């Protein structure tokens, strides 16, 4: 199955980013294609590259970058990003800033859209 993910909260502050990641890992293990992960609202904060999370904790930013390297589209809404001080200069690797229309496009193409947020 083709599954799209919508993530609406920032990393660490809310569990949504963790839940989305765990869901994606399990879905891929069951043979599904995670076509895209779309960051909206504070979710765009997942795509910033200046973080230094505690050594003994997970690195949420790195997870998204790694997923991107494995072929999952990591998409960041440009309008939400501009409000929240995220731009190309400070973007994690393998993520793309794109228009909000992409989300509708994903919802149309994918068999499922699963939202994680507050």
């Amino acid at each position, binding site marked *: 199955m083709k599954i799209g993910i919508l993530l609406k909260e920032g990393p660490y502050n809310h*569990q949504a980013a963790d839940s989305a990641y765990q869901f994606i890992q*399990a879905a891929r293990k*069951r043979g599904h294609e995670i076509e895209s992960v779309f960051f909206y609202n504070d979710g765009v904060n997942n795509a910033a590259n200046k973080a230094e999370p505690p050594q003994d904790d997970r690195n949420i930013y790195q997870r998204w970058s790694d997923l991107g390297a494995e072929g999952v589209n990591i998409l960041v809404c440009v309008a939400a990003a501009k409000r929240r001080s995220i731009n190309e200069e400070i973007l994690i690797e393998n993520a793309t800033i794109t228009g909000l229309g992409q989300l509708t496009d994903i919802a149309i193409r994918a068999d499922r859209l*699963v939202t994680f*947020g*507050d």
Partner: protein
Amino acid sequence: MLHTINQSPFRGDSLTSCIRFIQADDPILFMEDGIYAVQHGNKFNEIISNLSKTNPIYALSPDIKARGIQNVLAEVKQIDYDGFVELVENHQVNSWL
């Protein structure tokens, strides 16, 4: 349609609102802080018990474990992320944020 609830029922209104709109037989998955809704002994037990007569109820086990909830209501089926994905295979998803 699969309904997911991730807010504590003590703080948010997702649970009471979801119940008003859900159709019979639609599964509900409690996750994140939503887990507290299915803890045995709290004031939401009756609501969950009634709901279980018409709707299958699930709760995400890693979220239960994280919160140290020892007694989950018997009417609730505990599943892991693999089970969550299986539910999504069979249903469209309605996340009550």
